[in-house]
C-alpha cells in the first residue's frame, strides 16, 4: 500500500522481520512494523496474536530470534526496559504501574534513571516540569495530589506524564481505554493527538475496532504472529478490520432478536452490601429480572457491581435487604445452595474465581459439580465420567486445547472463558449472572459467548449482565440499570438507550438530568 498522504519521513521506529519463538509456539513470525514521527500507529490483533510479545521485544523484555530494530534508521540492540527508556521508548501498561499512596510527582520521579545516582530529589524542579508538561499537552495536574485519589482517567495521564518526563519519543500504549468511560476515552484521545502533533510517535495497541478507526493514522493488523494487513482508517471499516483480525467474516453486533420476558425470576429489594474493607458499597439496590430477558448493569468499575453480584450468588452476606429467586427467599444462601437452585455465575475474575489455573481443564469443567453423579459416587470421584463429559464440552463449546488434561493456565483467555461458560451454561438454569463475561477476550470468543447468552435468554433464563464495557451492555440488554455509588440511579430501555446519555449517568450518577432525557429514575 503506497497511498501515503503526508510527507514521507524517515521512520522513528522500524522493526524488521521480528521472529520470536517459544517452545512449541511461534509468537512473532517475521513481523515488520514502521512508525513515523508524529504518527499514531495502531497495532490491532486478537488476544494471543502476538502484540504483547512484539512490544516485549521492543522493550527489551524478550530477545528476538530473528529480525532487527531500527531507531531513526540506525540498528540498535535493546538490552532491557532501562535501555529502552534511555532510548526514548516508553510503555504505558494496561495495569498502571503507580503507587497509590505516593503523590503524582513522587510517582513520576520513581525509578527515573536520571535520579539513579542522587540521594536527594529535586522536588521543586520536578514539580515545575510536571506542571509545564501537563499544560503543554492540555491538562492541568496537581503534582502533590495522591495518585490513589485520582480517577482512572487521570491516573492514565500520570502514566503518560511519567513517560514524557523521561523524554519519551516513542510511546507504546497497551489497551489504554480498557478501563475508561467513553468521556474519559475522548479526553485521552485529545492528549494523544496533541502528543502526535508535537512529533511523538505513538503505538496504540487495541482490539477495539471503532477506537482504532478514530485515533490511528495507520493500522497494522496481526494474526497468529504475522502481519496480515495494513490499512488507512479512511480506506477501511470495522467489518474489514474484524475479518482481517479473525481471519473470517465476523458478526460484530449481536443479533439479539426479540425477547419475550415472562414472570419475575430474580427480585432484589433494598439490598445493602459491604466490601472487604467493611465499607458500604451497595447502598439500597432494587431490581427485578424476568425470565427470558437480559438485564444489563452499566457502571464505571468499582461502583458496587461486583459486591451486588456476589451478594446475589451467595458469596457475600448482605447487611440488609432481600433476594428472591422465583418467589423463594434466598437471601444469605450459600453459593452451593444457589447453584443447586438453578443459578449459574460467570465471575469477573476468571483467574481468581472462575478457574483453578494449576488444575487440568477437565477438573475445571466440573468445579461446581464435582461432588454430584456422575462425577462422583459417594466420595469417590469417577475420572472416566469427568473426562468423557469434558470431551463433550470441549467439542460443544469449541474450547481449543490439546487435550482435557492440560492445565487451565495453558489455554488462551478466550478458551479459558469458554471453559467457564461451558461449565455454567450446560444445564437447566433459572438465573444466569454474568460479571464482565468478555473482558479481555478476542472478537471471535466474544461473538461466541454473546450467542450463547442470547440462546440462554431465548430458552427462558433470566440473565443479569454486568459489564464495564458500555457497548456490550447496550448491545445485549433488554433493560439497563445504571449503577453509580452503590445505587441503581436509572433504568433505561436497552434498545433505545443513548450511549452518551448512559455514559454521562455512569460518570455523574445523573446529577445533570438534562443530558439524560431517555433515562427514567429508578
Amino acid at each position: 500500500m503506497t497511498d501515503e498522504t503526508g510527507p514521507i519521513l524517515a521512520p522513528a521506529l522500524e522493526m524488521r522481520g521480528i521472529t520470536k519463538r517459544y517452545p512449541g509456539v511461534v509468537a512473532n513470525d517475521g513481523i515488520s512494523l514502521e512508525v513515523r514521527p508524529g504518527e499514531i500507529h495502531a497495532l490491532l490483533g486478537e488476544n494471543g496474536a502476538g502484540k504483547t510479545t512484539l512490544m516485549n521485544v521492543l522493550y527489551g523484555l524478550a530477545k528476538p530470534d530473528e529480525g532487527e530494530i531500527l531507531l531513526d534508521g540506525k540498528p540498535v540492540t535493546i538490552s532491557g526496559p532501562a535501555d529502552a527508556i534511555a532510548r526514548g521508548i516508553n510503555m504505558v501498561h494496561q495495569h498502571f504501574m503507580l503507587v497509590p499512596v505516593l503523590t503524582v510527582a513522587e510517582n513520576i520521579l520513581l525509578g527515573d534513571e536520571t535520579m539513579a545516582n542522587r540521594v536527594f530529589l529535586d522536588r521543586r524542579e520536578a514539580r515545575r516540569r510536571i506542571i509545564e508538561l501537563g499544560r503543554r499537552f492540555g491538562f492541568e495536574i496537581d503534582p502533590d495530589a495522591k495518585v490513589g485519589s485520582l480517577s482512572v482517567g487521570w491516573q492514565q495521564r500520570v502514566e503518560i506524564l511519567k513517560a514524557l518526563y523521561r523524554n519519551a519519543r516513542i510511546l507504546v500504549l497497551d489497551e489504554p481505554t480498557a478501563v475508561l468511560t467513553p468521556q474519559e476515552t475522548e479526553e485521552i484521545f485529545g492528549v494523544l493527538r496533541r502528543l502526535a502533533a508535537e512529533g511523538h510517535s505513538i503505538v496504540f495497541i487495541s482490539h477495539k475496532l471503532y477506537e482504532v478507526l478514530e485515533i490511528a493514522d495507520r493500522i497494522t493488523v496481526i494474526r497468529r504472529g504475522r502481519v496480515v494487513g495494513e490499512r488507512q482508517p479512511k480506506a477501511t471499516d470495522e467489518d474489514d478490520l474484524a475479518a482481517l483480525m479473525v481471519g473470517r467474516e465476523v458478526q460484530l453486533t449481536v443479533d439479539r432478536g426479540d425477547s419475550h420476558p415472562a414472570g419475575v425470576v430474580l427480585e432484589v429489594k433494598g439490598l445493602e452490601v459491604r466490601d472487604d474493607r467493611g465499607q458500604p458499597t451497595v447502598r439500597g439496590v432494587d431490581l427485578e429480572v424476568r425470565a427470558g430477558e437480559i438485564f444489563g448493569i452499566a457502571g464505571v468499575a468499582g461502583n458496587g457491581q461486583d459486591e451486588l453480584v456476589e451478594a446475589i450468588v451467595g458469596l457475600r452476606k448482605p447487611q440488609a435487604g432481600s433476594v428472591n429467586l422465583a418467589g423463594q427467599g434466598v437471601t444469605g444462601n450459600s453459593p452451593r445452595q444457589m447453584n443447586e437452585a438453578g443459578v449459574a455465575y460467570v465471575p469477573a475474575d476468571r483467574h481468581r474465581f472462575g478457574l483453578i489455573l494449576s488444575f487440568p481443564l477437565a477438573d475445571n469443567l466440573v468445579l461446581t459439580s464435582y461432588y454430584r453423579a456422575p462425577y462422583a459416587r459417594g466420595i469417590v470421584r469417577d475420572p472416566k465420567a469427568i473426562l468423557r463429559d469434558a470431551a463433550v464440552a470441549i467439542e460443544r463449546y469449541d474450547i481449543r486445547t490439546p487435550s482435557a488434561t492440560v492445565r487451565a493456565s495453558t489455554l488462551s483467555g478466550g478458551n479459558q472463558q469458554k471453559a467457564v461458560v461451558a461449565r455454567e451454561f450446560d444445564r437447566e438454569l433459572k438465573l444466569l449472572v454474568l460479571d464482565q463475561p468478555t473482558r479481555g477476550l478476542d472478537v471471535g470468543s466474544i461473538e461466541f459467548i454473546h450467542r450463547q447468552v442470547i440462546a440462554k435468554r431465548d430458552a427462558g433464563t433470566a440473565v443479569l449482565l454486568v459489564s464495564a464495557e458500555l457497548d456490550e451492555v447496550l448491545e445485549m440488554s433488554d433493560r439497563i440499570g445504571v449503577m453509580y455509588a452503590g445505587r441503581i440511579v436509572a433504568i433505561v430501555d436497552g434498545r433505545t438507550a443513548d450511549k452518551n446519555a448512559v455514559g454521562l449517568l455512569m460518570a455523574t450518577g445523573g446529577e445533570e438530568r438534562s443530558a439524560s432525557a431517555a433515562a427514567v429514575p429508578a
Partner: protein
Amino acid sequence: MSAPVPVAGARPRRSFAARTWSVLAVPLLVVILSLLLGAIVILASELLVARPACSTVTAGTPCGFDWMLWFTAYAALVQGAFGGSDAIIQTLVYTTPLVLGGLAVAFGFKAGLFNIGAQGQFLVGALGAVIVGVALAGAPAPVAIVAATIAGIVAGGLWGFIPGFLKAVSGAHEVVSTIMLNYVAVQLLAALVSGPLKVPKSPSPVTYDVGNAAFPIFLGDTGHIGIILAILAAGLVWWLLFRTTWGFEIRSVGASPDAARYAGMRPKLLTVATMTFSGALAGLAGTSVLLGVSHSMTSSFGTTVGFDSIAVALLARSNPLAVLPAALLFGSMRAGAGLMQINAGIPVELVDVLQATILLFLVASPVLRRLLRLRNVQAGIATAAPGQSLGAGTAP
C-alpha cells in the same frame, strides 16, 4: 495480554524422559549438592584436627591427612544403612515415622497449609498411645494395639485440630500457632512423664512399658508392623487426595481459596479437617515409634522426626507417593550414621548437616532451576503472559 498462539503440529509436548527429568532433576541435584557440601565439611573438619605425620608413628595410629575420608564416611553411611538385612530393616524402622510425618506435612501443603507442628502432634500422638498402651498393657494384644494406636491418632488429630480451628475462626496463622503448640507439647510430655505417668520410685522419669500394646515384629529383630502402616498410609493419602471429592476440595482450597469458595466448597471447614487429618498422621508417626520401638516414654522422648518430616515433604514436593523414597533417604542416613561414626570417626551429627543443606538447597530450588535452565510447565509463555504463570501452590 497476549499469549502466543500454539502452532499446529508443534504442540509443547515433551517426551516421557524429558518430563521425568524435569520432575526428578531438582531433588536429585539437591541431594548431590548436599553430599558434596558434606564432603567439604568432612575434609574441613579433618584439617582442623592436627595429626602427626605418618613417618613418626607406629602403624595403625591415625596419621597424616586423609583426602579420601569423605569417601570412607559415605561408604560407611551406605553400608550402615543397606549392608545386610539387619541394616536394611533398621533403615525401614527409621524411615517409618518419617513417612507418616512427611505425609502429614505434605497433606497440609496440598491444602495450602504449612503444618510446622508435626513435631508437637508427633509427641502428643505418642503420649496418647503410651497412656492407653500402659493402661491396656495386660489386655489381649489385638485390643491393646488397636486401642493404643487409635488413641495416638486421635491425640495427634486433636493437636492438629487446635491450630486449624484457630485459623478458621480467627485467622490465626497456622505457622505461628503450630510452633507455639510444639512447645506446649514438649512441656506437657515432660510434666506427664515426670508426674502422673512416672513409674513410682524409678530414679529417672520414665513410664511403664506398653506390654501387649507393643507393635508385633514381623521382620528380623526390629521390623514392626508400623512399616506396613506407613506404606498403607501413603497409598491412602494418595487415594484421598486424588481420587475422592474430599481430596479435590482440599487441593482446590490449596490452589485457589477464592475459586474454591466460588465453587461452593467451605474453605474454613476444610482447613479444620485438613489440619486435624494432618495431625492424626503425625500422631500415628509418634505412635509407631512408641509402640514399635521404645515401648515406653522418657522425658527426652522424641527426636527431631517432626521437623525432619518437613524436609521429607519438601523433597517429595508434597506428592504422597514420593514421600516414600524421600523418607527412605533421610531414614537411611539416620540408620547409617552410627557405622559412619565408628568407621570414619565422623560424628553422627553430619547427618543433621546433610539434612539442613538439603532443606536449604530445596528452598533455593528456583535458583537451581534457573541454573539448570529447567523449564517450568510453561516458562517462556509465562514471560509473555505474566498473569498466567501462577504456580501449583504446593509449597508455601
